[in-house]
């Protein structure tokens, strides 16, 4: 099998793994949330969620019918070699996975709303490219559902207010979103850069496991504080009231213009699906998540 075919097949497998099996950190957080939950209604919701995760795994079935739009994060190792065929290979992989897994055909033209039927279309699947070390191509599949994505927001805040403004914005958006992003959620926050970069970072923050705080202590503290704050809202699982509104808050940041403070928020439902594999130059495939 040539490397091109290996990339395509690995992408199909990675997509399949993403929609069926939740990452370990998310499953652990949901179980913890169940153990700590004090509201009976909320416990019923968390039981349904945990049962559903087991049923999905046992039956090898996508845990949620909204298998999202397909986003890829691809890191190209400096010694991997040619990658010009990768977009076409990922496109074919999405088409194959749509039939084989199966995935729900979600991709429509934004204005005519005509469904392409195979989850591909203009700029879809979307590939985020990064440069990296080593002889491998790392492919992360992130199928992103609409319920949580529709709760995204961007604000250009007052730079002088700093972290205070960020905290207020996050708390307000979580209250405003209520039940809609399928809580307990994970909140991705992108701070700084520019308007578009803040939103990109917000989504990228969701790739980090929720049991792994930001490496910088100040940012890690802010993540912890924000999590405490949003869980004081009492919105709870599915917005029916309860303790577990969010499982984690992940922040990424970039330096920004001295005159601006862009903040992006990308919410993730409890079905936080992501899977990663590495394809080495010699064709060897390594499953990471």
């Amino acid at each position, binding site marked *: 099998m040539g490397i091109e075919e290996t990339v395509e097949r690995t992408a199909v497998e990675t997509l399949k793994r993403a929609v069926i099996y939740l990452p370990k950190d998310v499953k652990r957080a949901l179980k913890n949330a169940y153990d700590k939950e004090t509201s009976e209604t909320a416990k019923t919701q968390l039981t349904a969620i945990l049962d559903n995760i087991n049923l999905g795994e046992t039956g090898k079935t996508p845990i949620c019918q909204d298998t999202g739009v397909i986003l890829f994060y691809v890191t190209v190792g400096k010694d991997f070699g040619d990658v010009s065929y990768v977009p076409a290979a990922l496109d074919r992989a999405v088409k194959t996975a749509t039939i084989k897994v199966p995935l729900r055909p979600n991709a429509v033209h934004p204005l005519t709303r005509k469904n392409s039927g195979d989850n591909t279309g203009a700029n879809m699947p979307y590939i985020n490219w990064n440069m990296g070390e080593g002889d491998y191509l790392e492919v992360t599949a992130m199928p992103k559902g609409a319920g949580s994505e529709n709760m995204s927001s961007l604000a250009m805040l007052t730079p002088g207010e700093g972290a205070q403004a960020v905290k207020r914005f996050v*708390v307000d958006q979580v209250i405003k979103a209520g039940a*809609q992003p399928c809580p307990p959620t994970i909140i991705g926050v992108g701070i700084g850069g520019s308007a578009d970069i803040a939103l990109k970072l917000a989504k990228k923050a969701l790739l980090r496991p929720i049991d792994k705080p930001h490496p910088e202590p100040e940012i890690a503290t802010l993540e912890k504080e924000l999590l405490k704050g949003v869980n004081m809202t009492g919105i709870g699982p599915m917005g029916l009231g309860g303790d577990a509104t969010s499982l984690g808050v992940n922040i990424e940041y970039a330096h920004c213009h001295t005159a601006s403070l862009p903040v992006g928020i990308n919410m993730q439902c409890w079905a936080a699906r992501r899977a990663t594999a590495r394809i080495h130059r010699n064709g060897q495939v390594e499953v990471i998540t």
Partner: protein
Amino acid sequence: MMAEFKFRTPISEADARKPKIGDSVYVSGLMITARDQAHRRALEYVKTGKPIPVSFDGNVVFHCGPIAAKEGEKWRIVAAGPTTSTRMESYEAEFIERLKPRVIVGKAGMGPKTAEAAKKFGAIYCDFTGGAAVLASQRIKAVKGVEWYDLGMPEALWIMEVEDFGPLAVTIDSQGKNLHDIVQRSALEKRAEILKTLGVSP
């Protein structure tokens, strides 16, 4: 205390008026999926006198776009959790008035127009756990048909036979009470205290 109800379609107005917010409901019988586009088309057809391929009267509407797989000539529902119901808010009141469904199932709740229609015409809105699509599909016994497939798999009308579909949490009852609204308002009331805890001025 929370009460539990088991309904079989066709559900009468009197039955639909029994549960209160916070109660638990299971439904059996005919459940039909409808999202934004199906709601829009159904109302357009009603107004222009065009026939709608299935009757909603006394039945259950499910805000859901399933993953369905065709096996030979038969459809099988692979995964079928609820979608966010707020997108249907602009259609639902009129839908309840004209097409008379008694139970609407979705997630994340609906607004004052739907609550008003539920009160006036005798219907309830219930939440099924968002994302619990495999759990939901286990309660779907058969696909009786699919209509308006030209709208795409998620937006089509999937006509399904369900057995003990639930547990459904009643979040809008026929008195027009709205549980999601209560939770949301309570969260807003806590805002000042939360900001204070985080050391933020309101």
